[in-house]
């Protein structure tokens, strides 16, 4: 396996270098660097969006989620993602139109202009920073621990984390968004191939899909329905997750940026359609891998399940490709998120192109160091931390949604409401505030609160303008 690992690693790194040299231009503008010249086609769009979305969380977390919590995981993520891809289609139209009229450097900067106050931008940036940083860190940590378990003699856990972060830093700072988009494309392609071959092998092991699910039924028939063996998939949990994931194109800057940098509206729509197909293929494979694990590795730890299923039960070449695929998945998703934070930072600062580019690169380096520190310190719960990241950033989605959709300047009370929701959610995670209000999950209650504030704000402003006119 080691020989195959080095062969695939060299090919992968060669492709990364090829992509960065192809995209590198000495005299490029800051928009070329941060927004890839806003010239991304549908196929590249599908692959880069998929890579930004499908991180190690999909590779390692989702099969384990199916294994432990059962088929409700499909509703948890696949159905939510399906709705989210439609949201790209709908929201993308308004976002791109607004970006054309107001100008787009990053969501934070654009909202500062729309609301007429820097506070709108600050709250979006703070939300993204608070919830993206630990998510990036947990992925790097997860993969570093995994690599350390496979190659114990080669490097310590922090050594793997350092390598990932150094490549990420060099690639992002030198190559810019276009290089990241190309590395995303390589990752998404790898992810699809590896997941499908392993998924196919998992079904083949049992002879057929029928036999696979018959065996799952024997092991624990609670895996075949909701709420699952541990009772996680309640309607409230699934609904709150659905809302958080649905809002991702608005709430997380790496996704909104990818919508804006598409070549045209038509290409954006094609991207949304392509994503539904790619996502379904990915989720089918993860479901089969998870169900295989439910039968074969019923009581194993996550790490043992993943290393056995993805590596030791596969041929040496496929196992090596899976390791490189995992590395690529972490690298591109982390890169996308850290780079998005850099874009948001850039959109909030002023100055000439040269000084803004320099400050942005310094900020990117700083974010990367923070991620590295977090990755060494954190504990591991990949899927649930990903969910916290989605939910946390969804608290700032109302400012973004109303800002993009409304023709007039929206009310500043929305900024305050989003800030309150963001910090209440944060305090509930730290257990300073209960995680339920009157039997309703706090995240769901906060979504309801934000919807109510939006409704009131828009109604009162509409009545006021009618009275004034």
């Amino acid at each position: 396996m080691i020989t195959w690992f080095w062969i695939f690693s060299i090919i992968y790194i060669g492709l990364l270098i090829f992509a960065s040299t192809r995209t590198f231009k000495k005299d490029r503008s800051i928009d070329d660097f941060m927004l890839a010249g806003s010239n991304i086609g549908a196929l590249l769009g599908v692959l880069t969006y998929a890579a930004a979305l499908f991180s190690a969380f999909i590779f390692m977390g989702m099969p384990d989620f199916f294994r432990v919590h059962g088929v409700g995981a499909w509703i948890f993520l696949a159905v939510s993602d399906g709705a989210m891809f439609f949201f790209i289609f709908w929201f993308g139209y308004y976002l791109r139109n607004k970006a054309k009229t107001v100008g787009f450097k990053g969501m934070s900067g654009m909202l500062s202009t729309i609301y007429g106050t820097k506070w709108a931008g600050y709250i979006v940036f703070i939300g993204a920073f608070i919830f993206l940083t630990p998510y990036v860190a947990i992925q790097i940590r997860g993969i570093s621990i995994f690599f350390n378990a496979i190659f114990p003699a080669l490097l310590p856990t922090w050594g793997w984390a350092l390598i990932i972060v150094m490549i990420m830093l060099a690639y992002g700072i030198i190559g810019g968004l276009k290089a990241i988009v190309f590395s995303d494309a390589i990752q998404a392609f790898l992810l699809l191939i590896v997941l499908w071959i392993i998924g196919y092998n998992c079904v083949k092991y049992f002879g057929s899909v029928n036999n696979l699910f018959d065996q799952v039924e024997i092991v624990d028939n609670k895996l075949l329905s909701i709420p699952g063996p541990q009772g996680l998939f309640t309607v409230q949990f699934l609904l709150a997750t659905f809302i958080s994931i649905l809002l991702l194109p608005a709430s997380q800057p790496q996704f909104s940026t990818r919508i804006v940098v598409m070549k045209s509206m038509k290409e954006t729509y094609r991207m949304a359609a392509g994503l539904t197909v790619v996502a379904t293929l990915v989720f089918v494979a993860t479901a089969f891998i998870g169900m295989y694990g439910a039968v074969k590795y019923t009581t194993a730890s996550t790490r043992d399940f993943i290393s056995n299923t993805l590596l030791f039960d596969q041929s040496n070449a496929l196992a090596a490709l899976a390791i490189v695929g995992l590395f690529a998945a972490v690298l591109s998703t982390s890169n996308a998120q850290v780079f998005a934070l850099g874009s948001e930072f850039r959109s909030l600062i002023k100055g000439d192109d040269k000084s803004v580019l320099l400050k942005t690169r310094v900020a990117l380096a700083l974010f990367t160091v923070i991620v590295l520190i977090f990755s060494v310190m954190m504990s591991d719960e990949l899927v649930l931390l990903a969910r916290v990241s989605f939910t946390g950033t969804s608290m700032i989605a109302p400012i973004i949604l109303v800002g993009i959709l409304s023709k007039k300047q929206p009310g500043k009370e929305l900024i305050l409401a989003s800030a309150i929701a963001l910090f209440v959610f944060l305090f509930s995670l730290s257990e300073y505030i209960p995680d339920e209000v009157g039997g309703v999950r706090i995240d769901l209650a906060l979504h309801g609160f934000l919807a109510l504030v939006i409704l009131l704000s828009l109604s009162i402003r509409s009545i006021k303008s009618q009275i004034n006119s």
Partner: protein
Amino acid sequence: MGVVFLSIITFTPLVIPKYTYLPELFGLPYTLWMGMLLSLCFTILIFIGIRVHPGATKNENNS
């Protein structure tokens, strides 16, 4: 409207009945194949949207 309808029924016992995995389809338990059917419906709606949405026919270009 179609998307709103699909989103609402997702959280009803029609798609996620508690502790029920029958009837099966091609060996898949009920919630899984219903979930897959919903994903397929979202895909179809997007493809229909591409044909009818005004943005798709607009000859807009960023570059």
